[in-house]
């Protein structure tokens, strides 16, 4: 549906997007993730034709956004970071204008506007001036504008910013619903939000693509690096000796005694296997009790942090 190749955007001497390539297939919800200033908005602005790229190409449904902008843009509905609303128009007038500009035929125009208003829940606000709307309703009006004309791809730049929890759930449900028969791409810097609705994640940091996978795969990648915390009834040397018998499977990250012959251990587990049972018997055989054992799974959040964190400190870029 969308093919991004070697996309680069340079502002003066700051590289906002650095040779990013990815493909977006139809009928899926894509999460576009990255810390602030990673280049999410810049990439989205280029995909939707709001910004020209320094290098690289974007094709939407086979049409190049730079060569064939009108045909390419017909397939896209875009909600930028700040909803682009005319303050002195009413909601319905605004939506009618966007529908006309998108080329919705006059016959079906009223029906189409009514449909998106119902979908985004702004019907009862339709006669209000946009400048008198609350942040949440402005966001919804912006979303209504994006889905007008039933575009094949809907691109949403941080669609849930500034919404209250109830609205958040509604918008998420709406995005999920849209994802049934369309391609949706939404950006966020909040991991949980994205993992809740997306089929695929694209993670960028400092303008570079760092990961492109399903949330499940990323999570599996995280599970292979689990951590065990245990408190055992043994002193440090005894504990280390017992763990040494287990071979390469586990490694001690830290160990400290916490009085009364008890030792707190943090173990890194290198294999995928569950080693808790083996650990239990290893200590039991030596007549040392395990007082507590906790397995800490790395969450998607940690994956995100580890993927983006190392790069983020490298260049120290925090530009837009």
């Amino acid at each position: 549906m969308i093919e991004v190749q070697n996309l680069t955007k340079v502002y003066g001497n700051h590289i906002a997007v650095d040779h990013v390539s990815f493909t977006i297939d139809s009928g899926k919800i894509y999460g576009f993730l990255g810390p602030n200033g990673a280049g999410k908005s810049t990439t989205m602005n280029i995909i939707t034709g709001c910004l020209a790229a320094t290098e690289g190409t974007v094709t939407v449904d086979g049409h190049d956004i730079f060569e064939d902008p009108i045909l390419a843009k017909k397939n896209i509905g875009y909600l930028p970071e700040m909803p682009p609303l005319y303050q002195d128009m009413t909601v319905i007038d605004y939506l009618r204008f966007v529908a006309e500009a998108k080329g919705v035929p006059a016959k079906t125009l009223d029906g189409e506007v009514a449909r998106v208003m119902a979908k985004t829940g702004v019907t009862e606000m339709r006669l209000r001036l946009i400048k008198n709307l609350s942040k949440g309703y402005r966001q919804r009006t912006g979303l209504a504008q994006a889905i007008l004309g039933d575009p094949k791809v809907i691109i949403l730049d941080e669609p849930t910013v500034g919404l209250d929890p109830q609205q958040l759930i509604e918008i998420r449900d709406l995005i999920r619903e849209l994802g049934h028969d369309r391609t949706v791409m939404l950006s966020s810097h909040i991991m949980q939000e994205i993992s809740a609705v997306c089929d695929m994640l694209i993670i960028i940091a400092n303008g570079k693509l760092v990961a492109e996978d399903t949330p499940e795969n990323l999570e599996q990648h995280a599970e292979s690096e689990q951590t065990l915390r245990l408190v055992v009834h043994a002193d440090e040397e005894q504990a280390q000796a017992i763990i040494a018998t287990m071979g390469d499977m586990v490694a001690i990250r830290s160990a400290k005694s916490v009085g009364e012959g008890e030792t707190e251990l943090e173990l890194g587990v290198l294999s995928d296997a569950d080693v808790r049972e083996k650990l239990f018997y290893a200590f039991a055989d030596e007549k040392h009790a395990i007082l507590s054992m906790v397995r800490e799974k790395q969450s998607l959040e940690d994956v995100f942090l580890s993927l983006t964190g190392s790069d983020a400190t490298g260049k120290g870029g925090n530009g837009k």
Partner: protein
Amino acid sequence: MIAIFKRELKSYFTGMMGYVFIAFVLLFIGIYTTALNLKYAYPGFEYVIKSCSFMFLIAVPVLTMRVFAEERKQNTDQLLYSLPISVIDMVMGKYLAMVVLLAIPTAVVSFYPLLIGSFGAVSYSTAYSSIIAFFLLGCALIAIGMFMSSITENQIIAAVMCLGTLILCFLMTALSNLMTSTALASTLSLMIVALLLSLIVRLMTKSWSAAGLTAVITFVPLVLLYLISPTTIAGAFTKALAALAVFDRMNSFTSGIFDLTGLVYFVSVAALFCFFTVQAVEKRRWS
């Protein structure tokens, strides 16, 4: 284009802008009509038009300052860029909306000569050719103002730049008369302009070699022309300045000549600045 045009035109009348603009134009022409035609009983409506053209100095910047500057301020330029419409349609939609807004008071004013005519003999052809020239002058100035609005984010700066440019155009004939038109003065002045041009090139391309090249390319023919035929270059600068006197192009119309070159001039200025606006809007995507 039609969607943009309709939206723009509607927005003039949901706010105060459209009404204020129309009222302002009608008020000015009304005052002058009352004074010249009714009070002093001049038989020609062209005097009114001639005296009123300076009103554009205020009306045009006020009308055009928001046209693109506001889009940027409220981020709606992103919407326009992402919609399946070309930049040309976007600019022309906005421009035509402003032209229609100017056409409304012009249409009202078109009844005035008939009104005056019912009290005596009026040269209708002069009156109406003046009104046409007045309208086209307005269209040309609106295009200039629109361009000023497209290069800045701030409405006030857009208005001030537009006002400054229009004042310069308004006074250009008087200014060009101040210049001596000897060959040497003319060559030097043109060289200064060429130097400024190459500075602009330097600012835009950030390359000294391009700027130097521009300077050399413009200097050489100037110096050659000065050496070979000083009579050609004498007065060239004042002529060049006079060409920028947009307002004075109306004078032939108000003195009873239907000046086709004048019409072509107004239309060309409008087209040129619409083209510049398209370029400025397009360029913004690259920065």
